[in-house]
């Protein structure tokens, strides 16, 4: 096995590893589960935790049913199902940032449903350019800092926070590079390499990613070049199917994809202010609003700069923000003559159906 394959193999297994085995795999680190794209991970890191993304799983142990109705997105239901089934034992807690109504509801019922796992709720403005959004967010981050200090009994100094920011920035830069070179990786490898960023300590992740980037195979050509849009893709099957159908993923507009790593946090000045500014500066996910930073313009720009042949929407069933976002993005793609395909994701991926549709789509775009 080449070092490249060995690293990839290592990263790929992480997505399937149950979280209860996490501490065994990464001794010396304190995992804390989190959901969605707006969590100030550096603050948790500076408090001594490793934020680990709660991925939804294919299995349903039937535990969430007593709390969330069937018309709740699987991302939220699966997190609760895992928690109630004891799969999250060993986590120091879970943290939610204000995003969609489903995550808000999950965070709201969590202390009642899963009292043994302390929950953090971080408010985050929905209007990223609202007057006073910055001072409001800053006050929220300060409150979170105090709560973390209270929990651990240790002050979070500016220097510690700056060190965490530097570590996360290093990862961001490498992930930026990974996304630039996306067409040189088979889609499942790209998926695994990015997903691992959310699952393992950054201290261990960035050297691996740096090595991986040095050993990428030369650029693949001739395949249809695709951009994937959606929230978060815990399940790798879409990327596997794209690969099998001969496609390449050259860009994305995933909540936890390229946009998430696009900008560094300012390393000079007050670190808490830098975190607030960073959160407000990123391209909004569909749960947020910014009158000037439009997602449709950004998607068209991604398609153009990445020379993509088509767009695949990977929309989670019952996801309201992405449900509306899809219509707006679709209209922009139609105006620009960019072909697109909608794949709806449920609890278990319908791989056969997905394959048929993606093969037909790739054939249609004729690349």
């Amino acid at each position: 096995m080449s070092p490249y394959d060995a690293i990839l193999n290592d990263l790929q297994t992480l997505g399937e590893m149950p979280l209860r085995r996490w501490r065994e795999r990464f001794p010396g680190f304190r995992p804390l589960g989190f959901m969605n794209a707006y969590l100030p991970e550096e603050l948790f890191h500076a408090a001594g935790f490793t934020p680990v993304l709660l991925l939804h799983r294919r299995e349903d142990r039937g535990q969430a049913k007593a709390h969330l109705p069937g018309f709740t997105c699987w991302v939220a239901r699966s997190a609760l199902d895992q928690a109630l089934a004891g799969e999250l034992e060993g986590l120091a807690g879970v943290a939610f940032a204000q995003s969609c109504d489903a995550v808000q509801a999950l965070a709201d019922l969590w202390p009642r449903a899963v009292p043994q796992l302390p929950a953090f709720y971080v408010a985050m403005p929905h209007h990223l350019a609202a007057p006073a959004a910055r001072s409001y967010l800053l006050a929220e981050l300060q409150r979170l800092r105090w709560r973390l200090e209270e929990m651990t009994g240790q002050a979070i100094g500016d220097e510690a926070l700056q060190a965490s920011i530097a570590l996360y920035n290093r990862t961001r830069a490498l992930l930026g590079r990974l996304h630039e070179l996306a067409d040189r990786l088979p889609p499942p490898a790209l998926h695994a390499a990015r997903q691992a960023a959310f699952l393992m300590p950054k201290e261990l992740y960035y050297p691996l990613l740096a090595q991986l980037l040095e050993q990428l195979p030369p650029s693949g050509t001739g395949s249809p070049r695709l951009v994937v849009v959606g929230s978060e893709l815990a399940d790798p099957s879409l990327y596997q199917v794209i690969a099998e159908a001969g496609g390449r993923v050259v860009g994305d507009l995933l909540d936890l994809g390229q946009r998430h790593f696009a900008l560094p946090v300012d390393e000079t000045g007050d670190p808490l202010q830098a975190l607030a500014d960073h959160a407000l500066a990123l391209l909004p996910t569909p749960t947020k609003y910014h009158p000037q930073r439009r997602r449709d313009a950004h998607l068209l720009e991604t398609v153009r700069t990445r020379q993509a042949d088509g767009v695949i929407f990977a929309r989670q069933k019952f996801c309201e923000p992405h449900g509306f976002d899809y219509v707006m993005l679709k209209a922009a793609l139609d105006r620009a003559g960019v072909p697109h395909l909608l794949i709806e994701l449920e609890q278990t991926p319908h791989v056969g159906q997905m394959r048929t549709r993606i093969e037909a789509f790739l054939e249609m775009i004729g690349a």
Partner: protein
Amino acid sequence: MPTYPRLQSLKTINRAMEQYYVKRKLMARLKPVAYVTSGAPVEMLEAMGVLTLYPENYGALCGARREAVGLCEVAEVAGYSQDLCSYARGHIGAVLQPAHAPLNGLPKPDLLLCCNNICGTVLKWYEALADHYDVPLFVLDVPFQHGPQPQPHAVQYVVAQLEALIAWTEEVTRRRWQPKKFRQVLALSNETLRLWQEIRDLGRHRPSPINAPDLFVAMAPIVALRGTRQAVEVYRELKAELERRVADGVGAVPGERHRLLWDNIAIWYQLYRFFRPFMDAGACFVTDSYTNAWAAAEPVDLDDPLPSMARTLLAVYINLDLPSRARIVADLARRFEVDGMVMHANWSCKPFSLTQSDLQAAVREEVGVPALVLEADMCDSRRYNEGAVRERIAAFLEMLGSVDGSLL
């Protein structure tokens, strides 16, 4: 089949709402038209002579007229998933094909005011409207409230936006801010609120003079006509009629045997029909969490309106955390002496529905009343399985009958 006494003042309210829509159609060319969400500070626009319209109320109207499904389908063809809010789908369908919509759709807006203290859906809905009509949009961002009291920094955040909203409205409507008029509107709004609270409180009488479907009809002015003289007048009339019923011992459901609480938005296409088997069994919905959402507010302080408005916007029922909402519902259950709850698990409304099981459990721990949870949708009748619903209602009523309301 038994017949039930009708409230005459509901006709007045329906007429007022008809006039409301007609007036807006006629005046739309003379005055700026704003679309607003149901939790927005409409008083500010009212004070500046802006005509306000509520796409949510219009969505409910499409549902009640049983025209929502056709309009939802128009939106679905345009790409909106069937899993999205049926108010939004219905209204967007009407925007796309007004000729096929009730009232031929709403007059076109000149400005949009979206306040997200009721859900995240409105943000996406209004963004779509801003694109479609190419008109300015103001997003009033009201953070979800954890804990019983608004956080000072959240109040400051909302106040800063309310100040910006005044400046923005002046700019886009080319109208001057009218502090005096604002004060008058707020005074009327406070009075409307007080009347609405008193009207709802009359449901505490045995028998209750009012039933939930009456409340669903009667709520339109507290949402859409808040801050107007007309709202005060129609509510005075309704209150007087209810007081006469109380004095005469007339109940909305004659021979009232069970007192129930309704949770979640109404099932608009089944407004009275749904409640019929309950009424036939002597069960009256004496209170509900939905129309209570407009009664729970504190009056706005006329001498320092913005901070107190901000606190009101933050403390909207559906913007509160689960312990706070459970406290409110348990308090309703106690004050109205209810024997049971019926909870509408509403596909369209995530904030109301996703935490409903835990809300039910928390309320039951406090007041120990049985609950029936029914899955349906507020406007999309394709989600309504009448046979299954009827069966479950019958079983619930039988259970209530066997304990004969003696649980409390």
